[in-house]
């Protein structure tokens, strides 16, 4: 019964969807204020989602209908499932087992993978270009992002998210692994296709990227999935690098602070080309994190 409750309402169901909408609004509002605008009203993301859900869904000719309808559901389901292994809202994870960090990260990647598949499922050229860019970007950010989250795991000596969180509550990893925090935050922006890394959905070049042909329900589910992933990603980074999440208040403060940094980067930077994105991550992101890893392993070996 309590597990059913956890699945439907708290912490992984409706409350997570609501949290995703709130975080999207905060992000949009902050970017708007940084651009000297008023920004959207607080219920804007909710209105967008409800409107999209109530709209007609056009299934274009030439697509595999099952995939077209199923991919958005798989994307949202993956994002929601990964929340079960993460200390959402500063509470202990609903489910936990050794090595759940890897499972959670793979479930988070499901959204990007589904977006890429959804784009290549249609015959639209813009969708295809968007899908190619989405998958290219995934291959470039995924490795550095994974390495940054494995840094704390290495320090804590466990690959269990709950264990790393407990370790981080006593050790401020922000000080010992500052490069990791930076790359993790930027990797999260790449995952969510936020402003400097939004070439997969560049509206001035390729209309709307992989989701060009999606209307109504499918688009709403993909947007919801992205919102949920924003909250989960922020939770993971805050939990690992900003001294753990012991209670809901810490959760609010730490993820809010990270979101402010995210909005700041979005507002001040312009879009990178896809080759620049890939080059940046492989040339600097991955190498920096690997150097930090090496340092970590060497110091751990000498200390213990």
């Amino acid at each position, binding site marked *: 019964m309590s597990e059913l409750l956890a699945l439907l309402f708290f912490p992984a169901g409706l409350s997570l969807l609501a949290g995703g909408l709130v975080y999207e609004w905060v992000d*949009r509002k902050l970017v*708007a204020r940084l*651009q*000297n*605008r*008023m*920004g*959207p*009203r607080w*219920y*804007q993301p*909710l*209105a*967008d989602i*409800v*409107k999209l859900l*109530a*709209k*007609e*869904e*056009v299934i274009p000719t030439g697509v595999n209908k099952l995939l077209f309808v199923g991919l958005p559901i798989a994307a949202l389901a993956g994002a929601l499932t990964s929340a079960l292994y993460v200390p959402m809202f500063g509470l202990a994870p609903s489910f936990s087992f050794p090595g759940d960090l890897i499972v959670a990260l793979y479930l988070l990647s499901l959204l990007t993978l589904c977006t890429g598949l959804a784009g290549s499922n249609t015959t639209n050229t*813009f969708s295809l270009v968007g899908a190619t860019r989405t998958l290219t970007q995934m291959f470039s950010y995924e490795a550095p992002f994974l390495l940054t989250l494995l840094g704390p795991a290495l320090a804590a000596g466990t690959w269990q998210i709950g264990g790393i969180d407990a370790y981080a509550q006593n050790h401020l990893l922000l000080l010992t692994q500052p490069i990791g925090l930076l790359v993790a935050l930027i990797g999260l922006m790449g995952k969510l296709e936020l402003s400097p890394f939004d070439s997969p959905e560049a*509206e*001035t070049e390729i*209309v*709307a990227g992989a*989701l*060009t*042909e*999606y*209307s*109504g329900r499918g*688009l709403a589910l993909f947007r919801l999935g992205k919102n949920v992933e924003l909250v989960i990603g922020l939770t993971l980074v805050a939990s690992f690098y900003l001294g753990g999440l012991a209670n809901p208040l810490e959760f609010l403060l730490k993820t809010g602070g990270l979101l402010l940094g995210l909005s700041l980067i979005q507002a001040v930077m312009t879009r990178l080309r896809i080759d620049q994105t890939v080059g940046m991550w492989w040339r600097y992101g991955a190498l920096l994190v690997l150097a930090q890893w090496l340092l970590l392993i060497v110091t751990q070996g000498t200390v213990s």
Partner: protein
Amino acid sequence: MIGGAGMANNLEDRWQQALEQVKTWARANSPWAIHFNSGSCNGCDIEILATLTPLYDVERLGIKLQGSPRHADVLLCTGPVTRQARDRLRRVYEQMPEPKFVIAVGSCAISGGAFQGCYNVIGHIDEVIPVDVYVPGCPPRPEAIIDGVAKLLQVLQGTEVTKPL
């Protein structure tokens, strides 16, 4: 038994009404727009772009410019319809998912304007697709375009949606 069925119907009606109200509220608060130029001199298009600048900040009304017709609710049309653009305009309109609305921006979109009677011009937007709101001006100011969208939202929130044809 009859009373029970009546009550069930009543409840269903009320549920439907509430659902419709929520849908209307969401539609009126989140009009995503797409912009199509079917032969305009570019004057109105520049004004539409000016409307989307931070100075007017239409995101506070929930208005967002979308690239794909599949994502859009409102089609902002500028210019008269040329023979070449007619099929494209109709196709863009038909690609949009229901419910969809059209705003004709500028004198040419309303009557053909300065291009009326040209050999390559069919006429105004209304001759090709149904228009919901007309925004006059040559070109209309950004305030006028925002007012046009606001009028559309008022019609949306009213009890009946009238489609002038």
